[in-house]
């Protein structure tokens, strides 16, 4: 780990003179989760860090920095978001320098608090031979990856950042994870229709409408002009009713349908921990079966809802 970090710093130090800013991670106030670092000067490079606590996907900042020469440090999954943004021509590859990393998995603060108890003042986190080792004020504990990593790591499609201009360290396989934890989608599908409806009603009653899910979503490029906060058009009203919040979640899911790379930022960002990835996962599954398509893999492709085939082999239309 340490050596990787030094390599990374060296690479950034070398590239910085030609860049306006480099986005990386640094230790923050929350010792279980690092925070983004915007490097504009040599001195800031030493604040960089790289370990399983670098869970945040930094790609979301890129569209906002369009026009600048930007460097970004990316994990495998972050790179998928970058690919999607390139595909939709929302960022310019020429202006972008990607420092790619091999990711061994991203730590899930929730799980660590629950399993290891060593919630606070974590000093270091490392993944070595299939274990996540946490050193904190309360001592050291090694957790099996299954109990320590974010849900998205179980769906990892490639631990190495691709595309990438400078790859740091050796390429490698995704973390070897067995028995993925039950997702909200699994639970949901075991329910009857009305039960599912009640589930969302209950979940949405907890939503505080802060729109962190949207603001953290690298593909929510409307941001300041989100249809959820406008009167023209007036899709959702201002009341706190679960109906309106569920409407927004449907909106987010459909607006990102065929574009969502399952980076999980929406759920990670939610301050009240709602399972809002669920709808997106379901749509991605449908899109895979209907159009044999996965977002964020090929920058040359077009998102499935922005193209069509005259005869859709996998669509079974109802005969009346």
């Amino acid at each position, binding site marked *: 780990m340490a050596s990787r970090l030094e390599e990374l710093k060296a690479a950034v130090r070398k590239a910085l003179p030609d860049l306006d800013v480099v986005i990386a991670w640094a230790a923050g106030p929350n010792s279980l989760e690092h925070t983004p670092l915007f490097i504009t000067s040599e001195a800031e490079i030493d604040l960089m860090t790289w370990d399983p606590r670098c869970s945040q996907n930094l790609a979301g900042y890129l569209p906002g920095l369009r026009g600048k020469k930007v460097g970004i440090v990316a994990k495998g999954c972050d790179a998928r978001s970058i690919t999607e943004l390139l595909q939709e021509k929302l960022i310019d590859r020429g202006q972008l320098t990607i420092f790619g990393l091999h990711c061994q998995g991203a730590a899930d603060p929730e799980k660590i608090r629950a399993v290891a108890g060593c919630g606070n003042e974590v000093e270091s986190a490392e993944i070595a031979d299939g274990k996540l080792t946490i050193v904190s004020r309360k001592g050291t504990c090694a957790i099996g990856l299954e109990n320590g990593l974010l849900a998205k790591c179980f769906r990892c499609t490639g631990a190495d950042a691709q595309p990438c201009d400078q790859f740091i360290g050796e390429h490698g396989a995704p973390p070897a994870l067995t028995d993925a934890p039950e997702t909200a989608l699994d639970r949901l599908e075991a329910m009857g229709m009305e039960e599912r*409806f009640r589930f969302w009603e209950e979940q949405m009653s907890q939503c505080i409408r802060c729109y962190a899910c949207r603001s953290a979503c690298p593909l929510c490029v409307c941001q300041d002009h989100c249809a959820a906060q406008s009167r023209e058009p007036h899709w959702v009203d201002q009341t706190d009713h679960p109906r309106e919040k569920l409407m927004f979640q449907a909106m987010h899911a459909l607006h990102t349908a065929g574009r969502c790379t399952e980076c999980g930022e929406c759920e990670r960002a939610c301050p009240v921990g709602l399972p809002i990835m669920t709808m997106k996962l379901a749509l991605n599954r*449908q899109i895979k079966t209907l159009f044999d398509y996965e977002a964020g893999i090929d920058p040359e492709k077009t998102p499935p809802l922005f193209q069509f085939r005259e005869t859709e082999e996998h669509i079974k239309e109802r005969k009346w």
Partner: protein
Amino acid sequence: MSVLEGKELRIIGFLCNWCSYGGADTAGVGRFAQPTDLRIIKLPCTGRINPLFVVRAFLNGADGVLVSGCHPRDCHYTEGNFYARRRLEVLRALLPVMGIDPARFEYTWVSASEGQRWRTVVEKFTEQVHGLGPIPAFNSGTCLDACLSTAISSAPAHAAIGETHGLST
């Protein structure tokens, strides 16, 4: 006004202007009797149908939603229904996750000449929705602020103000 209690359910139809709306007209000209539940919203093309209209309708309490447009390759705007087909197929996967029975939603293609087919579609779909009954409604109790507003003391209504001719507001 709303649906006739016990008799009808709330079924919304989104129809394209060129084919299916005309098909429904043809059915009318042919005097093909149909159930009365369906309320038709006319759009220029199924390509205009944002799947969120359908979601909104269900969250607002619609018991069924039917979308109908031109047959593939017969779209007045050449491509609208091809895009619609993809969008609506994706929507089909979203509804059950939200707890809305996917059988409450259908999309199909009916041309301006197919009055008979339109009748069949309306009959079958209406029957299908009646089979499912009314859609579950939200319990207002789940809205925390509703609790906070219980036992509201209501000030007497103010006298009518702004006596105007017409509602030029």
